[in-house]
């Protein structure tokens, strides 16, 4: 029932059984919590007294989502965007260049042995 890997084995059925048992235990613990809480004003988030803006205006768009990550690696991403030009001549240049590199790495050591 288990997939043999190099370091051991992986058995998804046993994993699923363990997951269901852990889920049931945590569900029972969650059910034993407080059932009553005040609704209405107490449920709203606290934004230092400001009104909560409507959800459409604070929905983060896709471009801004990983701003911290992309801004830190600004140098790397500028370099990558400069390489990916979109010009067909550059695609051919990459292909011929890599073929030449393969030739130099694989065949020339054999020739000069």
């Amino acid at each position: 029932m288990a997939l043999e890997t190099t370091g051991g084995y992986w058995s998804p059925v046993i994993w699923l059984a363990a997951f269901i048992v852990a889920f049931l235990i945590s569900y029972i613990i969650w059910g034993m919590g407080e059932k009553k809480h005040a609704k209405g004003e107490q449920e709203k988030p606290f934004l230092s007294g400001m009104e909560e803006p409507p959800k459409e205006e604070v929905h983060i768009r896709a471009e801004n989502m990983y701003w911290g990550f992309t801004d830190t690696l600004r140098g790397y991403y500028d370099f990558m965007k400069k390489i990916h030009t979109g010009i067909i001549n550059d695609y051919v240049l990459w292909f011929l260049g890599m073929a030449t590199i393969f030739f130099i790495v694989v065949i020339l050591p054999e020739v000069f042995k």
Partner: protein
Amino acid sequence: MIYNVPFLAVVVLIAIGAYALLFKRNLIKIAIGLTILESGVNLFLITLGYREGDVAPIYTNLPSGRGMVLPVPQALTLTSIVIGVAVLALILSLIIRIYRKYGTLDSHEMRRLKE
């Protein structure tokens, strides 16, 4: 030495085709470069099969005592020429539609899909 001239022609044709593909900006010139490269490869295939002093590989009415050049590369070349025609037709029709949409045939301007 005379029998090596077709191979030199193959090298020159492939070099011209690769030059046109790499450095020319006009899309029609890129298509022409691709065709020249394909002609070079077809010439290479036919030149492979040549044997000195032999005649064309037609079996009936073969002159006695003569051999034939290899017929298999000629079959490969015919197939390759047909495939080249089909690909060229597709590329040219795409270039016509692109010119109507983009208004330019410059490959450096045709970059709406970048990064």
